[in-house]
């Protein structure tokens, strides 16, 4: 436009960006992926073992084994999904690609609930482990106050965006795995081998075997041990060669997690009765691994392992709390950029360049979840059930999405494809996904029926999310010109 001509009201100046596409540097490898994934899945043994023992009693190792099979299904489904769709968002992304924005949002919102529960439950289990050094931390009021303090501290740290070293994370995880292996080996050598009858008594003895409904419930709660499977797929967009590395990281996690979890659960039941293992007030319900260390028969070993487990468990649980916080802020941003969630939640702080609104808001929600802890220490099993509610809904939708993509988009490149396929009307259906969907959905329904707290809190959370979603979509539609709606439809937004 010539400078001599006056500017008309309809004139627009369009300045195209010189560099239209910036490059994303993807540097994560298998160690980075594994440490992030194991940091989340592996941390759950530090609290979930006690919650499972509270319900499944002597059948705890068997309940964990059954949940472990479902964990394999979930890992394989996520490996296929993340290798096929290497973008952050996990099940929310799979569901958006397979179905539509609404289902994608439901999966993402359920995942958010599980992240909030991770933050709350991980922070809540740090003080019991540290009570080895300061016994006052086992008091409910002090313990809950400290848990809330941990969340406040991490909230400030994450709003300011302090750097996190992935190398340090890997070192932590390696030390953690070595300690867990040492505990399992020492437990087998000094406890189980000396008197194998104790394990049989603690599992099948009178009053130790659960009723059938409790056993089923135990399997459902045991799913808590394996809920961090989402973490690796969330990092898909940061992974170099995701098609190769993500499935490998999942396989490595399956082996390590299943071997260590089964070993720890057997050693735990060799070292103490299931009642002691699950009791959150007078037993080791909130710090089960510390219980194993405290029950080692040789004083020298106890003196080494009890403080080591206390420090390691506290640090791993802190890492898991932080991972939940990072996960939820990234997921919120992901949903906002795909027009599934109000953009205010992805607003970035001018100075610190972090999504401060979502970090603060979801930390406050996690802190509110901890309030019953002041009066009722046993409430953390309710928190565990709420975690399972959110995670399993997300997993079920992930399986459904992978199944739907197999049927509706069979030609999309799948660098990793699950086995056990059957052909129906020319479509290749994976039995792993089918059984995964049935198992996750079934356990979710069990939780819904038997757990009143997670039922009402979970349903309230989902309804609140849907109200936000529909209000946001209606408002967005009325604010957006028709041509833009058409363009967004074409783009699939």
């Amino acid at each position, binding site marked *: 436009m010539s400078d001599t001509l006056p500017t008309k009201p309809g004139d627009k100046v369009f300045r195209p960006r010189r*560099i239209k596409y910036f490059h*994303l*540097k*993807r*540097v994560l490898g298998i160690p980075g992926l594994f440490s992030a994934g194991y940091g989340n899945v592996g941390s759950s043994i530090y609290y979930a073992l006690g919650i499972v023992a509270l319900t499944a009693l002597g059948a705890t190792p068997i309940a964990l084994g059954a949940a472990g099979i479902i964990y394999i299904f979930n890992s394989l489904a996520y490996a296929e999904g993340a290798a096929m769709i290497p973008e952050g968002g996990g099940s929310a992304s799979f569901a958006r690609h397979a179905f539509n924005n609404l289902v994608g949002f439901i999966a993402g919102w359920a995942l958010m609930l599980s992240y909030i529960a991770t933050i709350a439950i991980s922070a809540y289990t740090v003080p019991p482990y540290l009570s080895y050094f300061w016994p006052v931390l086992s008091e409910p009021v002090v313990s809950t106050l400290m848990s809330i303090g941990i969340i406040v501290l991490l909230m400030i740290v994450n709003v300011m*965006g302090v750097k996190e070293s992935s190398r340090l994370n890997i070192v932590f995880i390696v030390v953690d795995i070595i300690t867990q292996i040492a505990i399992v080996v020492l437990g087998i050598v000094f406890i189980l081998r000396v008197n194998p009858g104790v394990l049989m008594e603690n599992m099948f003895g009178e009053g130790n075997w659960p009723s059938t409904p409790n056993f089923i419930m135990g399997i459902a709660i045991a799913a808590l041990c394996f809920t961090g499977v989402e973490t690796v797929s969330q990092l898909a967009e940061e992974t170099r060669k995701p098609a190769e590395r993500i499935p490998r990281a999942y396989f490595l996690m399956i082996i390590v997690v299943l071997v260590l979890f089964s070993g720890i659960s057997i050693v735990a039941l060799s070292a103490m009765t299931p009642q002691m293992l699950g009791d959150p007030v007078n037993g080791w319900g909130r710090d089960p691994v510390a219980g194993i260390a405290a029950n080692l028969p040789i004083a020298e070993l106890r003196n080494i392992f009890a403080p080591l487990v206390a420090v390691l468990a506290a640090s791993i649980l802190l890492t898991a709390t932080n991972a939940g916080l990072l996960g939820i802020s990234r997921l919120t941003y992901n949903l906002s950029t795909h027009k599934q969630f109000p953009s205010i939640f992805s607003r970035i702080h001018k100075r610190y360049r*972090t*999504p401060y609104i979502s970090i603060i808001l979801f930390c406050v929600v996690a802190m509110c979840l901890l309030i019953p802890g002041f009066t009722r220490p046993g409430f953390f099993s309710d928190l565990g059930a709420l975690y399972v509610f959110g995670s399993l809904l997300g997993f079920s939708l992930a399986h459904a999405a992978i199944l739907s993509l197999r049927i509706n988009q069979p030609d999309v490149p799948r660098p990793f494809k699950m086995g056990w396929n059957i052909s129906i009307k020319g479509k290749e259906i994976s039995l792993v996904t089918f059984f995964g969907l049935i198992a996750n959905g079934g356990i979710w329904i069990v939780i819904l029926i038997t757990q009143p707290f997670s039922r009402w809190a979970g349903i309230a959370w989902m309804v609140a999310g849907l109200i936000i979603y529909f209000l946001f979509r209606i408002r967005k539609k009325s604010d957006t010109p028709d041509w833009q709606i058409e363009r967004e439809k074409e783009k699939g937004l």
Partner: protein
Amino acid sequence: MPYSKILVPVVGTEVDGEAMKLACRLAKNEKEKEKSKIWAVSVVAIKRALPLDAEIDSEIKRAESVLDRVQSVAEEEEFEIETDVLQAREVGPAIVDEAVERGVSLIVMGIIYKRQFGQFSLGDVVPYVLKNSPCPVILYQQ
């Protein structure tokens, strides 16, 4: 020495221009001038609370203006360069990774004199690049 491919990471300090001039002169020394290539990159570090593909407009615009400046410096030296904005979690690994990916024969970095706790400090990016670079690195300090 054969410096046919040169990478110049820029951060927006005054010394960026000088580093670019140095890179252009080193490239010109080559007999086959037309084959020498210079890339200027500006790395936007994304915090872990955000996905890696988060578009922080202010940061990207800043990175672009920094690249614009060094591009004009290169034009004054009668050299055509390529520029790129990278988004990464950490700056050091992104520079090294870019150098490996592009197969560069030299990295030229401009640094300024800065102090941390009363001591001269190179920060954490320069030592990382010096330690992990696949090729020679020239530091230009103003």
